[in-house]
């Protein structure tokens, strides 16, 4: 039993890690292969796939579109999710349970189903499939996460905090700006980063709601149909490391603030 704990469990863990990361390493390496096809072994190395992709107009415009969609949809999700959380935190009892269920439901619907439903819905509204449709689709998908993250944070706020501000002469607007928003800031920052990534990597909604301009994941999928080449591996690797750096920065940012407080 001790042997199992001392050796087998770590081994099992590292195997799993290898399973997770080996494909990514292979992909990163493939981008360096000097050939038009993906295959082993790599005998000649090159950086031209990486260099090409940085200047590939098609890829770049897809990336820019994805980034725009991510920022816009996240801002809409915040603008809708935050007031929702504020409303929910003031509601009690059965009503609250019902409202929370309604707000969270979109996160549990099969994405394919909700995307098709949304496509039918927006065509009724007269909105063409395209960037605007994708933005609204992503915003709808992100909003539950914003609402839940903000609500969780609000629920942990001491209920005397707002009263203390009122007591010292703050009206409702000042209470919100000076006390509630700062309290929510870490949750809103986390929700912002999470929704950005959620939107950026989304394929299903973008595919069903998109027009002629493809987002980055949709473009990659289109390219795959003509076969894999090292260029796709190269651009995917670059995107992966960029998003990873963003994620780590966000994580570090929140953790450093926490650490500084624990130190003193």
């Amino acid at each position, binding site marked *: 039993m001790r042997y199992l704990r001392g050796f087998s469990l770590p081994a099992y863990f590292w195997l799993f890690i290898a399973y997770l990361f080996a494909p990514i390493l292979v992909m990163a390496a493939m981008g360096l292969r000097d050939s038009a096809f993906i295959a082993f072994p790599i005998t000649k190395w090159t950086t031209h796939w990486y260099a090409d992709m940085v200047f590939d107009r098609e890829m770049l415009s897809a990336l820019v579109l994805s980034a725009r969609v991510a920022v816009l949809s996240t801002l809409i999700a915040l603008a809708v999710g935050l007031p929702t959380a504020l409303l929910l935190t003031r509601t009690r009892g059965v009503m609250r349970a019902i409202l929370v269920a309604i707000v969270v439901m979109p996160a549990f619907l099969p994405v394919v189903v909700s995307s098709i439903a949304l496509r039918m819905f927006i065509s009724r509204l007269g909105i063409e499939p395209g960037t605007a449709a994708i933005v609204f689709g992503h915003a709808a998908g992100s909003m539950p996460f914003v609402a839940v993250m903000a609500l969780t944070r609000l629920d942990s706020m001491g209920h*005397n*905090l707002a009263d*203390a501000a009122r*007591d*010292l*002469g703050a009206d409702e607007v000042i209470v919100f700006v*000076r*006390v509630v928003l700062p309290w929510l*800031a870490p949750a809103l920052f986390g929700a912002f980063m999470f929704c950005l990534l959620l939107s950026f990597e989304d394929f299903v909604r973008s595919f069903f709601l998109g027009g002629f301009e493809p987002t980055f994941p949709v473009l990659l999928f289109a390219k795959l149909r003509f076969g894999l080449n090292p260029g796709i591996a190269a651009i995917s690797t670059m995107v992966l490391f960029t998003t990873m750096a963003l994620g780590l920065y966000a994580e570090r940012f929140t953790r450093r603030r926490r650490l500084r407080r624990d130190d*003193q």
Partner: protein
Amino acid sequence: MTSTNPAIELKDIRKSYGAAVAIDGVSLTVERGVFLTLLGPSGCGKSTLLRSIGGFVEPDSGKILVDGRDITHEPAFRRPVNMVFQDYALFPHMSVRRNIGFGCEMKNLDRAAIERRCDELLELIRLPQLGERMPDELSGGQRQRVALARALAPDPVSLLLDEPLGALDLKLRQEMQNELKAVQKRTGKTFVFVTHDQEEAMSMSDLVAVMNRGRIEQIASPREIYSRPATAFVAGFIGAANMLDAEVEGVDGDGIVLDIGGSRFRLPSSRLTSGRALRAGDAATVVIRPEQLAAGGRGQEQSLELQGRLEDVTFLGGRAHIRFVTATGQMILAEAPPSMADNVGDTVSFICGSNEMVVLAVDQK
């Protein structure tokens, strides 16, 4: 502030939550510079009363005046009173200095004046070097002091303190009691303090209002509350008390003749502390503190003698607590010198002078 109005006046405040009555007609006047404690068991309405002065609970009826001004319907942020919350409620994202300055900022004081005020208060709470700390970098006692300074900063007419020492451990609690009292003395502010801890109330207050079931049972100095309790509840809630049932046999000029467990006893009428006068035939309660019973000896005429079978003795070093049961079956608690090492089962005898006990009218229900 040279006003001569009372700091706070409450006129017949009532508040119910559904069928539960939280405040049942409380009227109260708090003069300036007084340290008043609202004392009572949990659920007696003391916190609700305090929060209604602060503006966080709206009374169903009644009037609240602060410095002579009717503020019954004013929102909390316009009331010239500030609260110290039990959980301190310091703003976690603001430094100590910003916390203390918040109230002054809301009054639109200029930056320099706010800084000066913060310096003053940091000095007052003896934390002058900690202005830049964040609240979660402070100990419990320090947070407590910052909360006090923050509430004092806008120079309110009165400070409202809602069990502010409840979260501290015993030693710190005693330190903070002295500190609070000292700050109150130095600033001359009116303090309305809520607690369920009778020792805390007795040691800090100028006046104690004992509350029970949404009413004030008695409001008086700590000494008077202890030595002349006005109701059986007050007598039982504060300190230990023996309560003997009695019947009034008659009332003459300056005395009351009682029948206490079959023996006749005359008390000066000044020993009656409840408001209502007694008449022959009324039921009454005699309150005797354990330390007012003297061991042994034949009593003189003005002394009540209590005899009984010794039940147990608890030595406390310089003195002992003993319990005995009288012939009528009443358990009596008394203090005795430790030399009185009688055996359990022995008959013991105690006397109490008629000027030491208190007699209460029993409310007919």
